[in-house]
């Protein structure tokens, strides 16, 4: 193989100068259209409000590149999609780099420095690599077509739960057409590329530098063999080549030009969204700036430019739609459709040169592109959507900001309104007097220290449900006994504790959240302790992630890590192995929110339980339905409840004896669901603390009564 400068592809071979000029003109037009499209999108984003992006941009950029190259987020929960998209991505990337290399050689390095490098061995390897890249691209595209056309995956069904047939934006066939157009266009570009390669070979078969090296473009070579076999002459090949050259060129340039106007823009918007992501998006909600008149988002321009950019990153992959517990039980909420609605709204209003009057920018309602209040109130803020989104869209903060505006206007269910008023009055959602918060301590055989009056090592932030709900009080008393036995120096705040506010914030009552958080931080300031432990994952999340924004910075853990440590250090002695067949339900605010998956599982192992995971476990745990303030709202009649859905999933585990929870709301929801789904005679719902106490010999084992009796 020679390094001869003759071993290359002559660009524009056989073109009259006017044809070359025409090509460059078309290219210029394409680039101009592309530039205008980019300008229009950037203008749209700039119509949003300011955004805070923390951390160094360089670090973010490097993380984004690593994530994109690894395709980690796309392969999650859908390995075939991850694989096919890798093929498309790398194929397209290589082909793009290839074309750029040619441009570099021909239009930049060549004219400027009179040096060419695209020839010889480099050229041949280049050709091979690109041929392979093209195969990868086409292969990936064909799989995607098969996926959409034949597999009919439910998450790719664009039917939306928040509109009725007959509503103007119910019909999604436009999206489907765009999807297929994208696939076919790209495939056409790839295929015509190969065809072009082949007819060029036929046309130049007389030239040894071309024909002898044809197998460096294997696909083209095979096609060329076939063409010659059916009798194509060099002249005919030349004619085809001219036609295909223009077709392929215009198609490709057209594709590039239309990137900012089509789904293809996700190349940039997804990268941008990933780069700007907030890893604590749902765990730490943004404060309302002091000077801001209105709380929350009413108009599309109330969203930040980062959020508007993220709206454009959505590729309708459907993972959030699939993961959402509200959607799963038929509520009128799909996180995907909230994003798409807002995107359609933004496109319709913010892409024109003149910004429409403010009244037309209201995103609340049932009109095209608007978000209905039933949709917003269905959300459990479980962050399954945020966690799984491959392009880091942050649905939950968007929903909460929309809720903030509904709260300002009082557009809530009466039950929720009442609960918020009760929380304001008494600091708890049960309406009990403040003095009753520590009533659960009265029946204990020892005194629980008052952390406001004497210093303690560990401050136990108990939480509402654990303090007031009779069933949960038993668990709380159990933990107190465990801590006492292990000799832990702990105390509680007694009446000084108020509801931590996590769910109040997620409902959108930011003012009440500030009142509660400030009250708790003030109470904590009067106590002296080294760290905080809590039995309530919701309290854990907000104290850990959100209280620092209000001046409260503490070392805090959930009881599962504390218990694990006590067991491992031998401060609690396991008396017997339970030998139970169990499954563990990861609480949203402990698991998905704060990555606390392992401690409870290790505890279960230490106490001798056989853990069978449910399909939706760990980061894909299925919310019990109580989050986002939904525990304070009535369930719509006729809809399945998420907790029942979860129970049925557990019931499918044969021989299951215990459904283990480690969150007070989970305990409440799942005990109800156990009865409602008729599984009481099959297995039990128990809190992890109760199982630990059994293993320590402190509690009598409770078992499901024998059905056979």
């Amino acid at each position: 193989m020679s390094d001869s400068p003759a071993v290359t592809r002559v660009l524009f071979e056989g073109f009259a100068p006017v044809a070359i000029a025409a090509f460059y003109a078309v290219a210029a037009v394409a680039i101009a259209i592309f530039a205008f499209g980019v300008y229009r999108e950037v203008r749209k984003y700039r119509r949003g409000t300011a955004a805070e992006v923390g951390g160094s941009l360089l670090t973010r950029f490097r993380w984004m590149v690593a994530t994109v190259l690894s395709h980690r987020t796309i392969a999650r929960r859908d390995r075939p999609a991850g694989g096919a998209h890798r093929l498309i991505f790398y194929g397209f990337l290589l082909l793009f780099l290839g074309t750029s290399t040619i441009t570099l050689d021909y239009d930049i390095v060549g004219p400027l420095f009179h040096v060419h490098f695209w020839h010889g061995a480099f050229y041949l390897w280049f050709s091979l690599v690109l041929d392979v890249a093209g195969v990868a691209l086409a292969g990936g595209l064909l799989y995607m077509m098969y996926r959409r056309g034949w597999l009919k995956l439910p998450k790719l069904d664009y039917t939306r739960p928040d509109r009725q047939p007959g509503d103007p934006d119910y019909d999604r066939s436009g999206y489907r057409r765009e999807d297929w157009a994208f696939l076919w266009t790209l495939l056409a570009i790839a295929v015509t590329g190969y065809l072009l390669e082949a007819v060029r070979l036929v046309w130049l078969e007389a030239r040894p530098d071309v024909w002898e090296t044809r197998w460096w473009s294997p696909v083209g070579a095979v096609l060329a063999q076939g063409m010659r076999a059916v009798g194509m002459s060099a002249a005919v090949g030349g004619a085809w080549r001219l036609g295909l050259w223009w077709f392929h060129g215009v198609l490709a340039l057209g594709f590039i030009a239309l990137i900012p106007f089509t789904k293809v823009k996700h190349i940039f918007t997804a990268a941008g969204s990933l780069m700007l992501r907030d890893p604590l998006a749902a765990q730490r909600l943004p404060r309302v700036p002091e000077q801001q008149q209105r709380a929350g988002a009413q108009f599309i321009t109330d969203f930040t430019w980062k959020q508007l950019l993220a709206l454009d990153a959505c590729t309708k992959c459907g993972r959030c739609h699939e993961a959402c517990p509200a959607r799963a039980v038929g509520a009128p909420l799909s996180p995907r459709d909230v994003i798409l609605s807002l995107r359609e709204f933004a496109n319709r209003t913010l892409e024109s040169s003149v910004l429409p009057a403010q009244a037309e920018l209201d995103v609340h309602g049932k009109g095209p592109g608007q978000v209905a209040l039933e949709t917003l109130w269905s959300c459990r803020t479980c962050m399954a959507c945020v966690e799984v989104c491959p392009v880091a869209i942050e649905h939950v903060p968007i929903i909460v900001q929309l809720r903030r505006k509904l709260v300002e206007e009082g557009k809530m269910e009466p039950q929720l309104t009442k609960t918020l008023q009760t929380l304001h009055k008494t600091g708890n959602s049960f309406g009990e007097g403040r003095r009753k918060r520590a009533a659960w301590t009265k029946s204990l055989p020892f005194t629980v220290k008052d952390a406001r009056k004497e210093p303690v090592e560990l401050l136990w932030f108990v939480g509402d449900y654990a303090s007031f709900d009779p069933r949960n009080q038993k668990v709380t008393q159990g933990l107190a006994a465990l801590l006492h036995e292990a000799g832990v120096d702990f105390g509680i705040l007694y009446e000084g504790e108020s509801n931590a506010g996590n769910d109040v914030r997620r409902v959108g009552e930011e003012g009440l959240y500030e009142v509660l958080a400030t009250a708790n931080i003030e109470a904590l300031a009067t106590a002296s302790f080294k760290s905080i432990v809590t039995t309530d994952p919701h309290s854990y999340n907000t104290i850990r992630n959100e209280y620092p924004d209000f001046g409260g910075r503490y070392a805090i853990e959930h009881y599962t890590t504390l218990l694990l440590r006590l067991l491992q250090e031998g401060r609690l002695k396991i008396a017997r192995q339970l030998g139970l067949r169990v499954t563990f339900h990861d609480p949203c605010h402990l698991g998905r929110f704060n990555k606390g998956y392992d401690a409870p599982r290790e505890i279960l192992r230490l106490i001798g339980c056989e853990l069978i995971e449910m399909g939706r476990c760990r980061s894909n745990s299925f919310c019990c339905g109580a989050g986002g303030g939904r525990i304070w709202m009535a369930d719509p009649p006729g809809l399945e409840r998420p907790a029942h859905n979860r129970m049925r999933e557990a019931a499918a585990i044969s021989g299951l004896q215990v459904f283990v929870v480690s969150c007070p709301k989970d305990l409440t929801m799942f005990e109800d669901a156990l009865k409602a789904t008729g599984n009481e005679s099959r297995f039990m719902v128990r809190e992890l603390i109760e199982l630990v106490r059994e293993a320590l010999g402190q509690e009598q084992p409770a078992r499901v009564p024998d059905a056979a009796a």
Partner: protein
Amino acid sequence: MKVLVAVKQVAALDEDFEIRADGKDVDPDFLVRDLNEWDDFSLEEAVKTKENAGTPVEVVVVCVGPEEADEALRKCLAKGADRAIRVWDEELAGADSIGIARVIAAVARREKPQLLLAGAQASDHAFAATGIAVAALLEWAHAAVVTMLEYTPGAGGALLRRELEGGLLHEMQIETPAVLTIQLGINTPRYASLRSIKQAAAKPIEVLTPADLEMPPSEVGAAGSLSRVRRMYVPEKGRAQMIGGSVEEQAARVAQLIRERTGGAA
């Protein structure tokens, strides 16, 4: 056009409350205060009237109470009231509902509203008298326990429905100015978010004394009342016979009672 809304900050008893040393009231440490539930509805009705009117309407709230009553007034301001007035004087601590009514009537004479709304009763002492007493002092037309109101400011009268005994509703036309006492359920009171309550702190609360209202001492406090508290005590509570046991056992006993009392009709 002005609507005056008289509100009360009521007190509920905390667990384990104690009677004061003089035996006439509960130790204030054990009182939990809040805006009277009926007043949520009367304020909402006033704000609705203002919002539905074609002409400007001012909603003024008045409360007789010490400084802690400001919290209730701020809530009203957050919900749409334009101005708040609080009247207090140590003497007023000894006033019964009629004594309070005298103060409210004095405020009404000063403010000259076309409509005066009050709650049908208060959730703490449930006199169900203050609003109607004000009407007598002002010599205005009055209707109690109103469950529906249609009033266009400027019109000489209002259309309303009020409850009567036995689940009866009476639809009638009343001339204004009038005093109406409002019943629960007439509307859905709006929610005042905490932000709006905080922002309402910008609206002023005017604090007055009976002297500012030119009330003669013979009408202030106990002197202006028609009753006097002699003592307050915790009564012997009657208690039901509690049926214990498991839920099944309890249901069985109740089923037995049902069969006995209904002569086996079931």
